[in-house]
């Protein structure tokens, strides 16, 4: 089923490009083995949370509102800042006050396209992701009922929630709906992305370097094995042997959060006692072979989303390319897809040029909206 789905866009793409007088294979060199790279389709919208301008506007305000956290200090934007690619710019994310997080803060850009969210795919929608992040004890530490009552103390929010959701008083679940709707607007527009323009027929949209890089991506470097389809992610889980980030040996707060994670995810006592790193997909499945597996992230917009990997251990794309060139790290569970690539210096530059062509020409910035105040309720 998965393969059949992948094949259709490739055929369509070939048809489109042929109509424009180009042969698909000669342009991209794509085979039908992996879902085709392509511009992103229109953003998927769940049937129970239709988009509207008013909802998006409300969601934007809530995204920036620190009252959606325990001590009213931390908004979504605290770890997903527009000016740092909608991540937090650090290797491992900051956490709720009094804590430090244990994973890299992923970009919100194009998150709307993932079937599962978080580095190990813990949740299945933007709506549930927003709730989990605002409530999680090392992220927002918010109490749902408290946050809901805060919203009800803000007359402007009461009016907006009523207009959007038809409720007399704001419900916290609708706050997550609105935030998700806002996030569905934070997507790469094909006309802004060199690679997408190229795919739509503008042969000059990619430099010669980037075109060679595309060839490597699809071929010798083997990136497309996991970074495929319009999102450039197979949305599957792989262990790459990413090196440990030394902050976990240097910062007591990170050590606390790492152990706390083992505890709250319910790993067996024996595993807790000896765990020395993020166990990734294992937290969900408790299957030995899933230790250290993380969900392939999209490569779109990565110009703006450094540092890279689940623990932010690489600060530049050059480091990432070097890592893959050496066949990744060394872990017993490492994916067999990783092999030494033997890329030349020139080839690495070409690959980098292609990767950079996956980002919008300019970063997508949304100015922080004015937030409405609490009022005395008569």
């Amino acid at each position: 089923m998965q393969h059949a789905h992948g094949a259709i866009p490739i055929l369509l793409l070939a048809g489109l490009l042929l109509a424009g007088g180009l042969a698909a294979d000669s342009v991209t060199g794509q085979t039908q083995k992996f879902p085709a790279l392509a511009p992103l389709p229109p953003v998927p919208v769940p049937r129970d949370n239709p988009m509207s301008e008013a909802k998006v506007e409300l969601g934007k305000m809530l995204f920036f509102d620190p009252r959606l956290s325990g001590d009213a200090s931390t908004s979504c934007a605290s770890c997903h800042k527009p000016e740092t690619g909608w991540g937090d710019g650090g290797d491992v994310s900051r956490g709720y006050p009094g804590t430090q997080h244990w994973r890299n803060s992923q970009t919100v850009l194009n998150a709307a396209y993932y079937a599962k969210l978080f580095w190990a795919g813990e949740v299945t929608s933007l709506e549930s992701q927003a709730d989990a992040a605002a409530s999680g004890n090392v992220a927002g530490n918010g109490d749902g009922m408290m946050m809901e009552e805060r919203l009800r103390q803000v007359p402007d929010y009461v009016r907006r929630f009523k207009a959007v959701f038809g409720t007399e008083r704001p419900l916290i679940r609708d706050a997550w709906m609105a935030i998700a709707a806002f996030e569905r607007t934070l997507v790469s527009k094909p006309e802004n992305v060199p690679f997408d323009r190229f795919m739509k027929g503008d042969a000059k949209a990619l430099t010669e370097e980037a075109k060679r890089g595309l060839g490597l991506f699809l071929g010798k470097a083997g990136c497309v094995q996991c970074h495929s389809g319009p999102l450039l992610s197979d949305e599957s889980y792989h262990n790459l042997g990413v090196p440990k980030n030394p902050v976990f040996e240097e910062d007591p707060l990170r050590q606390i959060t790492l152990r706390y994670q083992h505890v709250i995810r319910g790993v067996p006592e024996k595993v807790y006692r000896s765990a020395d790193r993020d166990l990734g997909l294992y937290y969900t499945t408790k299957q030995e072979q899933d230790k250290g597996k993380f969900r392939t992230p999209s490569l779109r917009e990565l110009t703006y989303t450094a540092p890279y990997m689940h623990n932010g251990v690489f600060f530049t794309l050059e480091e990432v390319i070097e890592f893959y060139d050496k066949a990744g790290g060394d872990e017993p569970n490492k994916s067999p897809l990783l092999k030494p690539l033997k890329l030349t210096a020139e080839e690495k530059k070409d690959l980098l040029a292609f990767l950079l062509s996956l980002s919008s020409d300019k970063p997508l910035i949304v100015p922080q909206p004015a937030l409405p105040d609490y009022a005395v309720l008569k």
Partner: protein
Amino acid sequence: MNRFFRLGGSLAAIALALTPCIAAGEPLAPLPALEPPKREQVELGRLLFFDPRLSGDAAISCATCHDPKKGWGDGKALSTGYPGSEYFRNSQTILNAAYYKRNYWDGRMDGRDLPTLVRDHLTEAHFMQVDGRLFAERLRQVPEYEELFRKAGGEPSFGRTLTAVAAFVRTITSRNAPLDRHLKGESGALSASAQEGMRLFQGKAGCIQCHDGALLSDQKFHALGVPDNPKVFEDPLRHITFRRFMKTLGVPNYDNYRQDPGLYGVTKEKGDWGKFRTPSLREVSLTAPYMHNGVFATIEDVVEFYNRGGGAHPGKSPLLRPLGLTDGEKRALVDFLKSLSGDPVVVEPPPLPEYKLRALGKN
């Protein structure tokens, strides 16, 4: 309850109605000694009591709202609560808290289980909003705590933390108040004025109807018609906390409340609206402001309130009626109330041991 006892009770009630000199309730007495908690538990609990790492954002400790220097309360009319919020009731002293049968102003907790009372403070969103699994890992990051916990029974854990803090709280009790020395026969322990106040307390002023026994509390619930503290609903942050708390209790229509329902919030019985548990009067000179909403700043204000027969409340206790105290009698009563403070319970905030790095994978 046998028949004879019931008959005795009614006779007593009749006697009470007939005589202007009230002598109901348990006699005043020194507090009985509590079974001492284990020394290792107390030692550990003392540190934990002052440690802000037991709150969600590591900003506040038990001592933030129960400050030894402020009579083990916070000195405010209405307490602060968790950062980002404000609370809607007065922070009660923890002096002698171990003697109550019910805890909190609305009596929602069973006083015989102090560890659970500590748990409620730590994990509830309006107090310290922390996940017990998180602070257990925080404590495991502090070698001194690992050692103290080991002496107290094992590794740092949620449950052991509650036990230790509760053990410490059990040691915060008053001893040797002038009243106690007077009751033991020490002449001169109470001034003449305080002795006059004591007579009024047990007689004309009727205080002992509710403030009786060693704790000077009947541990029951009464509506006094205490004036509302307007700040609860005029301060958006307090109103938010109030609503969220009422929702957790499961009361209906809490959005529309503009008054603290007290015991009603717990029982949902109409007759309990506005009732609060009688607090002890021990250490009262240290624990201003007074009442569940801190609406009275001084003991004198409280005496005036009772002298007027309390406030206006449809379910007000029939025990309250105008007292007709003279100025001299009021002064004597205040002097007696001030004689209820014992030897100061001084605990200096201890230096707190810091986080240290651990070897990864040796958890």
